Each structure stands twice: as structure tokens, then as C-alpha cells.
């Protein structure tokens, strides 16, 4: 086929309209969410003392941290789905959860400690946390990659890592309502490790499936 013929064929297909990447990312996440919620409802569930926990600012901080990861990651992953887009100028958004955690750790350190530091750090759920967050992330990660496949990222591994961050952020939001460890030290350690695992998976899978 010569190039003029190909051009004529492409022009004949001009009427085809693809949905926006954001629409497919939303669809992917909405289809995946019930699977993550099913894992949550089957194995975890909301902690029984949630009504009292809501009065604890460190319980609420967990949601601020996880959502301040998930929402910027969604925004950046959509930005990166354009071929000419760069990470430059956008990466600072990912420092939001880090900053929040730093402030929370600082304010906890200034209060009279309810528990010794090692107990706050290790908590009661560290192993569950490292298992549950990645497990609930995987359906969301698949949904996110499905949506982002529709884009044209210049760095597929980077875009995949962002998909990992956003699904880990969403899964950690669910997990935060189950976990009774509210210390920012616990969150900074175990949530971060769980997020890193999911991000690495996202980058590895993304480098293959997000190539266009």
C-alpha cells in the first residue's frame, strides 16, 4: 500500500470519533471499583469504632493523605496521556500527601504520646496493610490501565507508575476506614511501602500495555 492510499483510507475513517481518555479512565475505575469493594467487604470491613474514631484528627488525616495522593495522580495520569506532555511542572502535586504526612507527624510528636513510638510505628496491622492495599489496588490498576491505554503517553512506564499511584491512593482510602492504626508514623511507613509495590507493578505493566 503506498502512502497516498493509506492517507485516503485514514481520511475515509475521519468520521470515527473516539471517546476522551478521561471518559474511559472513569469507566475503567467504575467497573473495577466493585471488585475492590468486594475484597474490602469480604476480608476487612469498616472498623467497629468508626463513630468515635471520626473525632480523632489523625483518623481523618489518613483520608486527607490518601485522597491527596489519588486525586493528583488521576489528574497527572490524564495529563501524561497526551503525547507531547511532560512531567515537568506537575510532579510537585505528588508532594501534597508527603507534606500532609510531615505536618501530621510533626503535630503528633508535639503531643503527649499515647503509645510508645515503636508501637505507633509498627501498629497492629502492618502485615495486613501491606497485603490489603495492593490486593484492593489490583482491580483498580487494571481499570486505570484499560482507560489510559486509550491515550498516547510518551513514557509508558511513567504513565503506568501514575496508574499505580492512583489505584493505591484509592485502595488506601478504603483501607483507612478499616485500619485501627491512626498514627501518621504508621501511615508514612506501611501505606508508603504498599503504594510503592503497586506503583512498581503499574510501571512494569504500563511499560508494555501503554505503548501506542
Amino acid at each position, binding site marked *: 500500500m503506498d502512502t497516498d492510499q493509506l492517507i485516503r483510507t485514514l481520511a475515509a475513517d475521519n468520521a*470515527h470519533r473516539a471517546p476522551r481518555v478521561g471518559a474511559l479512565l472513569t469507566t475503567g475505575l467504575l467497573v473495577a471499583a466493585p471488585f475492590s469493594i468486594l475484597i474490602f467487604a469480604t476480608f476487612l470491613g469498616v472498623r467497629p469504632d468508626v463513630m468515635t474514631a471520626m473525632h480523632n484528627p489523625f483518623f481523618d488525616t489518613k483520608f486527607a493523605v490518601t485522597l491527596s495522593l489519588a486525586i493528583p495522580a488521576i489528574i497527572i495520569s490524564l495529563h501524561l496521556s497526551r503525547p507531547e506532555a511532560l512531567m515537568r511542572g506537575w510532579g510537585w502535586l505528588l508532594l501534597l500527601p508527603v507534606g500532609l504526612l510531615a505536618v501530621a507527624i510533626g503535630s503528633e510528636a508535639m503531643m503527649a504520646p499515647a503509645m510508645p513510638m515503636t508501637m505507633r510505628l509498627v501498629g497492629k496491622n502492618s502485615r495486613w496493610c501491606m497485603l490489603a492495599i495492593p490486593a484492593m489496588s489490583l482491580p483498580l490498576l487494571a481499570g486505570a490501565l484499560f482507560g489510559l491505554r486509550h491515550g498516547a503517553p510518551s513514557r509508558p512506564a511513567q504513565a503506568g507508575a501514575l496508574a499505580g499511584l492512583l489505584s493505591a491512593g484509592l485502595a488506601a482510602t478504603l483501607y483507612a476506614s478499616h485500619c485501627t492504626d491512626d498514627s501518621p508514623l504508621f501511615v508514612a511507613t506501611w501505606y508508603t511501602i504498599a503504594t510503592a509495590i503497586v506503583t512498581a507493578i503499574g510501571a512494569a505493566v504500563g511499560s508494555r500495555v501503554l505503548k501506542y
Partner: protein
Amino acid sequence: MRGREDEWTDLMRSAMAGDDAAYHRLLKAVTPVLRAAARRGLARAGQPPDQAEDIVQEILLAVHLKRHTWDSEAPFAPWLFAIARNKLIDALRRRGRRVFVNIDDFAETLPGETPQETASAGEVTAQLNTLPQRQRDVLQSIAVDSASIKDTATKFAMSEGAVRVALHRGLAALTAKLRDH
């Protein structure tokens, strides 16, 4: 140079608004620029320039299938060159070379130095033959026989909608095969 790129942006806006002729003109207009850049990339990698047409066709297919990622408020050229650069790097890597492709390779092309001929390429043709029968028939009818969608529908006793679906699926499958082969 600015004038040329503004013209591309205008054509692409018309194309996205449904003007098939504008889209055709745009693809014709960018092809010599892509071809010159592909030749330069191959030359720098020590590869024969006769594979340039394969790369041009791969870029055109990617442009077509990813055009919904173009923001109609933004200029068209940076978007186009980003896709072209990505595809050129991929193509050279597949041929076993790692080269740095400068974005200026595209932007600095002067209209005078661009060869105008259209050339045939082997890869698209080879992959075309691996498509399902119906998609291949439709693509061949429109590409090689220059038939319209309507004529193609009549020829194969299909609805126009079915021809459009087969056409788009065929192009998408072709692109996937070129990327993964």
C-alpha cells in the same frame, strides 16, 4: 514556518469538526515533513533510507488513532512531532539501534528539501494480509480501488455502518500488528 504550522492547526480543527477533505489535505501536507525526518533518523542510525516509508506510514496510523488526545486549543505541530518522534525512536530501536532523535529534526525541515513522491512500503502491506477477510476486503477496496464507503458497502453487500466499523477495526488492528511484530 509559523504560517505552515498555523495552517496545520486550522486544518486539524476542521478535520475534527467533521471535514474529511481538510483531514486529507492535512495528512498530505505533513507527510513530506515526516518523510524527511524519518530519512534523517535512519541515516543517523546508519540504516538505509528505503525504510523511511514504513516509518512514515506507522506515524500516520498513530496520528490517526490517537487524534482524540490532541487538544484543539493547542497548536497541532508539537503534538504531531511528539508522536512522530516516539514512532521513529521505536522503529529505530526495533531495527536494533538506539539513537537520540531531536525534536528539531521535524521542526527544522524546510519545504524545499522534502521529496514529494509517494512511496510504497512493505510492512503495512504485509500486515494487511494477516487481517480478517472482511477488514482486509474493506481496507483494500478503499485504499487500493479508491472506492467510497458507499460503493464498498454495495460491493460487499454490507451496510455503510458495517463498512465503517470494519474500516476502523482494520486500521486499529493494523497499527497493533505493526507495533507488536
